[in-house]
């Protein structure tokens, strides 16, 4: 008998050990429930982290644009509209007004970590007989690569952008039949034409982007798009990625620009995450409930089986409170041990799944995130669930009339 365990613990542990098969089965049941929760939570967290990492290294966290050009209806008097149907004007490529001033203001904001002016517009990429409309992005590599990590996505060549270089998406290269070192003819709507050398190929893991994306030096872009000295967007990163939307709102209020945060741009993703979290919570709740019912069922049976033992214990001076605690403890112990086994099972499944599940390009599907917090929380929750589930059986055991129990 362990010297450090009080009466209630000694008895609870012995009762569980003696009812070996029941104990093993219910611990198995709890463990499976816990394993499902651990596996699911960790994998979702991993997938989210992966997605966010991808978004944040392939998109600016905040992008400043020139505000929409709005057509103003003609009005005769206040509130009176002459022409009800107002056609939206086509959005020409126009520079942001006074962008160097805005840039220096942005650089002065402590919550912003990188600022890079860029110019973007549609051009035609031509090589031999094939041509393709693409998005030309003129960037300052030094600052821009801190925001969109083009070098991280290079699959051939390098992310070099001198005035005659161009970096293009891997799909575009395939369509045009071009590769690193080949010349590419870029034709703008203005009629400007430049011959650029392919310095590198990028793969952003998205077919549409890989078909459209091209990067050139800012000055090259400006001259091709006919906007010397102008920029169409200012791209930025922030310290706290989850504050991006709030910062964007503030910038918009203080400057004549439109500010889009990555949170607004990826609203769909956040909707999906929220939906997933809701279903995750529901699954947790129902797994928890079925675990609780399982524990309660096992303990109810155990109270009946042990009624004579309870009677004898009461006869030798055991109080109702002590009997109550013996059975509460059994519930708590079942929950705790079950959660330990379940957490180990969940972690093992996670490690295995992580090793075999690959993305199309062979990289890991999700990063392996085994947070200690998740395990501690799960164990705590399972223990509390066990204690709560044991409540009814324990009260029943404590109320047992010793006379009836012994005679039974």
């Amino acid at each position, binding site marked *: 008998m362990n*010297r*450090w365990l*009080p009466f209630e613990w000694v008895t609870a542990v012995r009762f569980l050990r*003696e009812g070996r098969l029941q104990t093993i089965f219910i611990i198995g049941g709890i463990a499976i429930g816990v394993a499902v929760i651990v596996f699911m939570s960790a994998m979702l967290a991993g997938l989210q982290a992966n997605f966010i990492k991808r978004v944040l290294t392939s998109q600016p966290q905040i992008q400043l644009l020139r505000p929409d050009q709005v057509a103003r209806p003609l009005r005769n008097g206040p509130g009176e509209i002459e022409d009800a149907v107002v056609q939206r004007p086509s959005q020409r490529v126009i520079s942001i007004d006074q962008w160097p001033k805005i840039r220096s203001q942005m650089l002065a904001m402590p919550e912003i970590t990188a600022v890079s002016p860029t110019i973007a517009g549609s051009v035609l990429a031509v090589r031999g007989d094939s041509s393709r409309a693409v998005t030309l992005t003129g960037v300052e590599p030094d600052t821009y690569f801190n925001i969109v990590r083009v070098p991280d996505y290079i699959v051939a060549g390098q992310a070099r952008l001198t005035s005659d270089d161009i970096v293009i998406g891997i799909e575009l290269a395939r369509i045009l039949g071009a590769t690193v070192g080949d010349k590419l003819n870029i034709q703008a709507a203005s009629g400007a034409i430049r011959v650029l050398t392919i310095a590198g190929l990028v793969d952003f893991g998205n077919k549409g982007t890989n078909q459209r994306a091209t990067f050139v030096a800012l000055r090259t872009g400006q001259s091709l798009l006919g906007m010397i000295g102008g920029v169409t967007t200012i791209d930025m990163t922030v310290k706290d990625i989850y504050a991006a939307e709030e910062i964007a709102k503030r910038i918009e209020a203080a400057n004549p620009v439109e500010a889009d945060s990555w949170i607004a741009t990826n609203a769909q993703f956040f909707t999906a995450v929220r939906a997933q979290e809701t279903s995750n919570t529901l699954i947790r709740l129902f797994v928890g409930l079925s675990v609780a019912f399982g524990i309660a069922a096992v303990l109810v049976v155990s109270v009946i089986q042990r009624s*004579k033992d309870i009677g*004898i214990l009461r006869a*030798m001076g*055991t109080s*109702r409170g002590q009997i109550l605690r013996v059975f509460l403890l059994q519930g708590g112990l079942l929950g705790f041990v079950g959660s330990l086994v379940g957490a180990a099972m969940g972690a093992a499944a996670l490690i295995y799944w992580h090793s075999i599940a690959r993305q199309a390009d062979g990289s890991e599907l999700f990063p392996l995130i085994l947070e200690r917090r998740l395990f501690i929380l799960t164990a705590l929750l399972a223990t509390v669930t066990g204690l709560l589930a044991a409540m009814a059986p324990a009260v029943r055991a404590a109320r047992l009339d010793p006379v009836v129990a012994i005679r039974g």
Partner: protein
Amino acid sequence: MASELLRLEKVCKSYNVGLPTETEVLHDVDLRLDHGEFLALMGPSGSGKSTLLNIVGLLDRPTSGRLLIKGEDTSALGDAAITHLRGHTIGFVFQYHLLISAFTARENVMMPMLVDRRFPSAEIETRAQQLLAQVGLEKFANNLANNMSGGQQQRVAVARALAMNPDLVLADEPTGNLDTKSADAVFELMRQVNREAGTSFLLVTHNMELARRCDRIIEVVDGRIHA
């Protein structure tokens, strides 16, 4: 003159009180038991012996009448106080389900002390071992309860009943399930404890031969005492 350990005054016990099946099982029972007395309780089946024993053992309460233990009226005591008094004053030996099967012989003997002190200790363990030696079972200390014969189990139960040094041991047909030889051994053990430690015994038995070897025989017939 011997000092009084407990006294029953006009004790009545009814089962199913308030129901159509209400029946009075004990009628105005008066009984006095002294320190060091070894009493046999006899009577036909269904006469109310176990009921009487449960009341004396503080497992059940009389419907009316009083039970005084060492002069103290127990009817005013709450459940916690009753439980405490029971644990410290009375030891039980039952006919069936003698021991707790999840524990070894020694642990069964330790249980009443563990319940009282909460934590196991070398002292408790030593005392349990001594008690087992007293009933001649020190070699079986580590046997699980179920791995012993009925007679051995009953001797362990006697050792357990003595663990808290009770004033009174209540034994409800402790030898009813045993062969003559084992029954005799268990009885002699109790008689010896009674002689040496002065522990009082109230023994329910159908065995006339054993009853004759007690200090006094009390007969219960239809819920009344015939001394």
